[in-house]
């Protein structure tokens, strides 16, 4: 039966599956550590996209500030930057360090962001769009950084200029080879330098446009980190800027080769390779890796689970599923069946990731209904509400004793690997709160565990948040007040945390036992058991 016990396995190549699992283990360890230190809300590893956006803004603001003092002519560029870091180190110099280090950090955060999305397998199927639109961002980020290094016109800039020129000269698009611009001081052209200044402003703007496109298929993309985390980052940046201010490396001098330079190994690690391998090999590597990355969402193609489907007779157009869908896959459209509601929900199958969160959000998703063929407004065709109810009843039958705990588990968390008395879902937020009410009031178990994946890093985005808000009565549909909260436990645990999951579940079962004993005592003393006051 759909969803009873066991984790579903997605189709993947063994090499990739192992790579993801290995990476996942590393990420998991770091994420749990970060959650403990920073709290789940502030966990930097859970919001690398937002951190990348934040770092972009830091770079943009500090860049605008620097531009006020920067001389855009090649003759005076160097001395203006020296002035920034010299006499005016305490404001302009600090901004220069912010500009440099925030750019470097952006490279790091984007790289980890990419690896993390890969490890979570969040780039295939419907999610291909975010992945593919991410790749040009790497190019724009690097072009922005490289043109930036050029502008200082120090020895590093000279090195960057000479190697970049050689790289570009393999394409016969420039009338005169670019490399000839950097032969001797007499060859240097200020026209070319102005072009660079222009590129260093234009390319970051294209990057920003690309970042906007990148998040288009995601609802409520997290593009801003929480204030406290932002403040911590800014103060750490300030600390580093004072500890190790960014400095130039002596003026460019075309009569000499910049034989030894302090290289930015984050932006320029491939420049030595260009010299060692030759320009064509490096271009081959760059284009090859980009094409391979772009093809990855289809290597191998994702076997997609059946998508969500609207059942008009049960939809009143309340908008809750639209609000809760993490991938902008549902919208309200004018009513087509003549019912007296202005709207109805409509699913765009191309955007749906089959997380089931919409089913959990629909007010019609209530298992209490007596219908033979239980239906709801929006349902997951691969695991409809009817099957969910059957699975819950079947799972309950597997439980014995007086402290029966029924687990409703996200298949991406530790609970998804649990055996016996478990019903799994693509996301814990697929569970309609009324299902918990149903289980307890029908005495299918003494307690229910809602087992999600790790707290700060919901696989389906937003699922953890919605679940918490629904249980707390802050978001429709609420978990009804009459549900005894002592009989519901929420456990957030990644697949690598099965030990903690088991421990929390056992502790919950122990609490249930004392609760049962107290209830029995109360019952024998003649008081009414609130749990029996349920509708049939």
């Amino acid at each position, binding site marked *: 039966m759909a969803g009873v016990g066991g984790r579903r396995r997605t189709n993947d190549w063994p090499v990739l599956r192992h790579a993801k699992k290995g990476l996942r283990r590393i990420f998991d360890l770091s994420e749990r550590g970060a959650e403990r230190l920073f709290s789940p809300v502030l966990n930097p590893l859970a919001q690398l996209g937002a951190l990348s956006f934040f770092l972009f803004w830091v770079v943009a603001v500090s860049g605008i500030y620097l531009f006020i003092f920067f001389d855009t002519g090649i003759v005076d560029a160097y001395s203006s930057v020296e002035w920034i870091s010299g006499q005016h180190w305490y404001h302009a110099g600090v901004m220069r360090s912010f500009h440099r280090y925030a750019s470097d950090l952006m490279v790091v955060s984007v790289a980890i962001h990419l690896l993390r999305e890969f490890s979570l397998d969040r780039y295939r199927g419907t999610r291909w769009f975010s992945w593919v639109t991410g790749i040009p961002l790497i190019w724009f980020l690097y072009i922005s950084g490289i043109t930036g290094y050029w502008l200082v016109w120090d020895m590093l800039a000279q090195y960057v200029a000479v190697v970049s020129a050689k790289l570009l000269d393999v394409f016969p698009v420039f009338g005169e080879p670019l490399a000839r611009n950097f032969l001797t001081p007499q060859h240097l052209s200020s026209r070319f330098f102005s072009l660079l200044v222009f590129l260093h402003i234009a390319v970051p703007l294209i990057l920003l446009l690309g970042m906007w496109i990148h998040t288009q298929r995601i609802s409520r993309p997290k593009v801003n980190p929480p204030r406290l985390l932002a403040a911590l980052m800014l103060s*750490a940046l300030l600390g580093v800027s004072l500890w190790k201010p960014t400095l130039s490396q002596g003026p460019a001098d075309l009569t000499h080769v910049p034989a*030894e330079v*302090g290289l930015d190994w*984050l932006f320029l690690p491939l420049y030595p390779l260009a010299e060692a391998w030759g320009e064509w090999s490096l271009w081959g590597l760059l284009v090859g890796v980009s094409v391979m990355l772009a093809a990855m969402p289809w290597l191998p193609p994702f076997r997609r689970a059946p998508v969500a489907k609207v059942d008009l007779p049960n939809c009143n157009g309340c908008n809750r599923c639209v609000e809760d869908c993490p991938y902008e896959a549902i919208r309200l459209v004018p009513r087509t069946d003549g019912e007296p509601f202005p709207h109805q929900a409509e699913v765009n199958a191309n955007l749906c990731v089959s997380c089931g969160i919409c089913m959990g959000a629909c007010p019609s998703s209530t298992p209490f209904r007596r219908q033979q063929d239980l239906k709801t407004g929006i349902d997951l065709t691969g695991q409809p509400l009817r099957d969910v109810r059957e699975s819950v009843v079947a799972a309950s039958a597997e439980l014995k004793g007086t402290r029966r705990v029924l687990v409703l588990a996200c298949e991406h968390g530790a609970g998804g690997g649990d055996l016996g008395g478990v019903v799994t879902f693509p996301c814990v937020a697929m569970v309609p709160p009324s299902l918990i009410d149903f289980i307890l009031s029908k005495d299918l178990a003494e307690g229910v565990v809602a087992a999600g994946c790790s707290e700060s890093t919901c696989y389906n985005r937003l699922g953890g948040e919605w679940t918490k808000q629904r249980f707390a009565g802050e978001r429709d549909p609420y978990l009804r007040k009459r549900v005894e909260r002592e009989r519901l436990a929420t456990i957030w645990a990644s697949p690598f945390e099965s030990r903690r999951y088991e421990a929390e579940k056992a502790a919950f079962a122990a609490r249930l036992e004392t609760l049962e004993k107290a209830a029995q005592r109360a019952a024998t003393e003649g008081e009414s058991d609130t749990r029996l006051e349920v509708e049939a």
Partner: protein
Amino acid sequence: MKEALKMPLRFAVLALIFMGVAALSNRPLYRSLPEGTGMLTLSFSHGADRRAACRKATPEELAKLPPNMRRPEICPRDRPPIRVEFDIDGKRMFEAEVPPSGIASDGPSRVHQRFVLPAGEYEIAVRMSERPDGDFTWHEERTIRIDPSNSRVIDFRANAGGFVFH
């Protein structure tokens, strides 16, 4: 852990990561040229003489052309390649027939060769011909000194009298 302790610890962890990133942003040093060596660049961009490839038109060819287009010579639109020879201390370091650039093969021929040499004095000989055959019209011999991490350049400008040593 005490809440009060957490904030400085968070700061410390971030600052430590940022310090690592800042350090990587210009260390370790990279040496692009071995110690005690300098660079000599042979670089020019020069169009060969188009007329060099002209030839006399045959009477049949002339007959085919309309009378106002009849010229005694037929000249191709393509430039011919240039020929370059470059010796250091009598040893041939570079020798090439360099085709013209551009899609229509009417652009200048380009040479850009870099030689990493130990510091010292060298006898340089460079020759260039703008025709695919015949003698080298341009040639120059010189002794040059290269100091460590020096960048010396041999350029060519016909209107400056030929090879230019920087």
